[in-house]
């Protein structure tokens, strides 16, 4: 810019500081914002007249919230539905005021508004004290990493401006924040409606010597620069324009310089930054945090979206099991075994929830053990991926560790500030598996088909073993290298130390999956025939086996199975000789969307075998016919 600018304009070129206003519904957030904008002369001409007209139309006195509640439904129902941001100028410093809805129903909108704020004003009705949404919002401020919190004790006129009463309210809110590792920068007693201690000092509380709200806002620190931290440049995309390849992305922290050697992603490929490309900008030899850049690399390697560029001496954490905090946004609970995609900057990893480590009770803000995370609840969980994830643990004020969970429909269902790698459990050995030099392609070429795992689940007597053995024979005759892992066969040897408790059954599933994986990786087609009654157990198997895992539901109704009873087990269970028998006194959780659903109550073994064998051949087939075994 030229140097002819007046100081005020030059100063206003600083990035604006976003401040979010949160708190329980009806504690006065929108009123506060209206008052703040009015008293600091930040309202456009005609706006006040417009608000008075809208208020009058609905039989109300001046309703300041109409300034922000710009949707008809918001004005009609007197409730803020979605966040609004409005620019706000205070002594030449630019702010953006974010008005966040206080209703629980609109929690996702509150987070949308609050997530990038530098500071928060938590509005608490001093007479009413902290309520459910006060606690929920305070919890969220903690989880999204807002460190600077100003508590505005509102409506103190209802406490007759009484020092003792107001200080009691302050104490109770302060105790609540301490439980969340949040420390309020300030407590300000105020009346937003009347303007006390908002932009001007109240003469009705001579005992209060602290700052007014506008003075407190002026003290909010500007965002700290991330340029001096170690480099993190997540690849956003790779372009090829005019025979040149560009790696595009935004520098999350640190800086890149032409000539620097960077390490790319988990494959750890080193490459040199040979140029920083741009259009209509002076040539650059370095770029820093916050900038969206396009670099060329030497050698001309092709990274993938999501690969993290970093320096070799300052690598991120690498782990496939990650502990994380969670703010859960779905209307239904979360359970162990559910799979999601974890988005982390531009990376996306398939993950499964392998444990729910603790759940926060919103009444007392304590952590408890829990089986599930309730709708829109808070928890700590462990996520597992089948690949290594590069990340930095969450640090407020940076983009580090900002995980977001999305479901199969690509909907955002939760925020996951990553804590760190999941600790190695007691007795767990630290091991370094070696990789084979025989590649999957080599094996596939030699065998004429791919390896794969076909997991047959169903009640005892539904026909899993019968079908598996018949299909094994059919596939073998067609030249397929095939193996069956059958429940009873495994229990006769590998798993003979296991009983039928839930834990032992899970272990049985885990061992079957691990053996299947070894065989699959050696190029074989593996048929696993195991009751595996629980969704979570099969999720564990999928976790071990990855995407090449096909769940086959061998489905016969209980009456048919019980009538068949080939091993006499139903009779034994009915007479009480054995307990915990699936279908009788232990549950069977049917697959939700199996790769193949075989109904064996009616069909013949021959036709079901044919269906299964052709499904498997289609799955593992290379282009062209299977190699004939001659």
């Amino acid at each position: 810019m030229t140097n002819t600018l007046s100081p005020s304009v030059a100063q206003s070129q600083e990035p604006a500081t976003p401040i979010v206003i949160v708190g329980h519904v009806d504690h006065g957030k929108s009123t506060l914002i209206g008052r703040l904008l009015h008293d600091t002369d930040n309202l456009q001409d005609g706006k006040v007249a417009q608000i008075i007209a809208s208020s009058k139309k609905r039989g109300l006195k001046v309703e300041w919230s109409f300034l922000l509640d710009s949707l008809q439904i918001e004005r009609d129902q007197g409730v803020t539905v979605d966040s609004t941001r409005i620019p706000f100028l205070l002594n030449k410093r630019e702010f953006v005021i974010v008005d966040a809805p206080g209703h629980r129903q609109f929690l996702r909108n509150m987070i949308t508004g609050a997530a990038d704020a530098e500071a928060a004003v938590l509005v608490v009705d001093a007479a009413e004290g902290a309520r459910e949404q006060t606690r929920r919002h305070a919890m969220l401020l903690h989880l999204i990493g807002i460190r600077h919190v100003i508590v505005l004790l509102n409506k103190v006129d209802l406490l007759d401006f009484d020092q003792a009463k107001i200080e009691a309210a302050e104490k109770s809110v302060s105790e609540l924040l301490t439980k969340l590792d949040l420390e309020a920068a300030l407590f300000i007693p105020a009346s937003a409606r009347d303007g006390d201690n908002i932009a001007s000092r109240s003469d009705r509380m001579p005992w209060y010597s602290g700052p007014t709200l506008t003075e407190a806002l002026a003290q909010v620190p500007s965002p700290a620069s991330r340029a001096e931290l170690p480099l993190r440049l997540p690849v956003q995309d790779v372009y090829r324009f005019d025979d040149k390849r560009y790696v595009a992305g935004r520098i999350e922290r640190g800086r890149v310089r032409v000539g620097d050697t960077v390490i790319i992603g988990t494959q750890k490929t080193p490459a040199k930054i040979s140029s920083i490309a741009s259009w209509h900008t002076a040539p650059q030899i370095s770029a820093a945090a916050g900038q969206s850049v396009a670099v060329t690399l030497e050698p001309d390697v092709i990274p993938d979206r999501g690969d993290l560029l970093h320096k070799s001496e300052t690598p991120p954490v690498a782990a496939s099991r990650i502990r994380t905090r969670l703010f859960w946004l779905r209307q239904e609970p979360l359970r162990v075994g559910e799979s999601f995609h974890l988005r982390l900057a531009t990376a996306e990893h398939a993950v499964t929830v392998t444990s729910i480590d603790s759940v926060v009770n919103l009444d007392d803000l304590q952590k408890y053990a829990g089986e599930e995370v309730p709708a829109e609840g808070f928890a700590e969980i462990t996520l597992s991926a089948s690949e290594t994830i590069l990340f930095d643990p969450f640090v407020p004020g940076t983009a580090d560790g900002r995980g977001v969970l999305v479901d199969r429909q690509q909907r955002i269902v939760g925020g996951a500030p990553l804590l760190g790698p999941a600790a190695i459990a007691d007795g767990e050995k630290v091991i370094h598996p070696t990789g084979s030099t025989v590649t999957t392609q080599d094996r596939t070429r030699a065998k004429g088909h791919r390896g794969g795992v076909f997991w047959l689940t169903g009640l005892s007597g539904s026909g899993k073993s019968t079908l598996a053995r018949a299909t094994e024979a059919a596939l073998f005759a067609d030249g397929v290298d095939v193996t069956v892992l059958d429940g009873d066969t495994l229990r006769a040897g590998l798993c003979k130390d296991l009983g039928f408790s839930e834990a032992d059954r899970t272990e049985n599933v885990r061992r079957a999956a691990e053996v299947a994986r070894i065989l699959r990786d050696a190029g074989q087609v593996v048929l696993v025939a195991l009751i595996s009654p629980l969704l979570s157990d099969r999720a564990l198997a999928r976790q071990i086996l990855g995407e090449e895992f096909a769940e086959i539901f061998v489905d016969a109704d209980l009456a048919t199975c019980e009538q068949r009873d080939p091993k006499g087990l139903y009779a034994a269970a009915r007479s009480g000789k054995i307990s915990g028998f699936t279908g009788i006194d232990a549950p069977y959780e049917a697959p939700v969307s199996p790769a193949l659903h075989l109904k064996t109550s009616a069909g013949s073994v021959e036709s079901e075998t044919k269906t299964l064998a052709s499904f498997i051949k289609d799955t593992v087939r290379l282009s062209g016919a299977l190699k004939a075994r001659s």
Partner: protein
Amino acid sequence: MDHLDQLEAQSVFILREAYRKLKPLAMLWSLGKDSNVMVWLAKKAFLGRVPFPVMHVDTGKKFPEMYKFRDEYAKKWDLDLLLGTCPPVEEMDPSLPPAARSAARKTAGLAAMIEKHKLQGVIAGIRRDEQGTRAKERVFSPRGASHKWDIRNQPPEFWDQYATPHEEGMHIRVHPLLSWREIDIWRYIEREGIPLVDLYFAKNGKRYRSLGDQDITNPVESNASTLAEVIAELETTRTSERSGRAMDHESEDAFERLRVAGYL
């Protein structure tokens, strides 16, 4: 980084996300100052080119200067320009006030373009500070098969993670300028030297602050005839940018009704 650098970097990030995730993608070019800034930002993001089509949904009622500008810069900027037309006003919802009803033609023209080109992403230059309902928008705003904006059920959007289409017939409105203010746009135009239609500069004591159809857009009183004067004027103004747009002022919710139906 100063304020403009930060806005530019964020918009480039958004445009690159859209280009990566939404196919086919197109950018709306209304020929006004904001959409020129948007084309410029795309050239920044993609190193001097706009790698997707640029659409002008033509009401047929723009100022002649605007058509001249379009034809000149489509060539100069090497844009893949798609033109769309709008149905006559008689086909629009008669319960809308007159100016809003006229503006609704553009909604219908846009919907036809989206269907014709099976667009998954439409980049539009709206800003939060223009109007209250725009202040409630997402950067990636999903629209169902009917193109309606479901204000009650907007997806969460935080930590730069955006919604992606997950159903047949859905599209995403992408808003790379959402966080820019009117004055940021002007300061950026000045810094970068971005060309503009000269209707924005005062002649005979009047200038256009916002450009729409000729019959429903009014000029404002102003003597600002240069970029520096416009910026100086905006630093002290106390009236809203869209005060010259008739459809915003006909009734309390006219503009909201337009937007819910798919207007920008």
